[in-house]
């Protein structure tokens, strides 16, 4: 392993802002995408169970 301690790992040689700023954004983006997937499927299934009727 490269890192003598957890603090060293988190510090990323002084580049913590850039490295973790990147990885956190990736995690946030993928997490948001997964959430959107779940919501879209749920809405589609609800529509099938109980179709919303248009106003006349």
């Amino acid at each position, binding site marked *: 392993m490269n890192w003598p301690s957890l603090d060293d790992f988190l510090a990323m*040689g002084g580049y913590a802002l850039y490295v973790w700023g990147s990885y956190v954004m990736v995690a946030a983006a993928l997490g948001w995408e997964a959430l959107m997937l779940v919501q879209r499927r749920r809405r589609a299934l609800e529509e099938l169970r109980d179709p919303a009727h248009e106003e006349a």
Partner: protein
Amino acid sequence: MALTLPHPTAPLRWTRYAAPSAFYALAGRLLPWCWAAAALFGAAGLLVGLGLAPTDFQQGDAYRIIFVHVPAAWMSMVIYLALAFWAAVGLVFNTRLSAMFACALAPSGALMTFVALWTGSLWGKPTWGTWWVWDARLTSELLLLFLYVGFMALQAAHDDPRRGDRAAAVLAIVGAVNVPVIYFSVTWWNTLHQGSSISFTKAPSMAAPMLAGLLLMALAFWAWAIAVALHRVRSVILERERGAAWTRALPEARA
């Protein structure tokens, strides 16, 4: 009356999966494998990239952004080519499912493009001294983001989804020229963005553990993108085929 069954040794007709109902079921069976692959490759890639690969002599640990930036950038291009391909197939053969799949790919591609631009910017600041520069690679990747958003907006702007599919397909096909521009930009022009360290024709110029981490993360992003596309296309199918009896008869659609 005799019930006719398919001959037991008849070859598999792949074209049956052009039917939304058949593909819906197939995608459902493939999904767990894709999610598992994404998780496994992702865990392995992060372990190698963040834990095992050594610090770079020139860039220090800032280079570790490579393990998310490059896979996202690769996927942004691959997804666009897949989108343009399926949109073209849908346009030429008038197949509904092809267009639905293109529709399902677009948000993923846009997200990968955004991630590539964001992580690239964060990598550029400590190494180049700037968050952004209008060089050929960065500019063409930004254009890719606009193409994805344009595709989605154009499709959604039509009341008739099939007309929307056709209009968006034309945009997708025309915009496909941007992908080779992005790819070759670092060769064709003087760019601040570095040239390729990995090519199809010669040995890579980066250290083995770094390359291993990069390839594992690339596989992870690819598996994730496939999983997301399969999941999303199932929702698109349910939305578009809601008039058909088979959708309403699905166990998950029963109250």
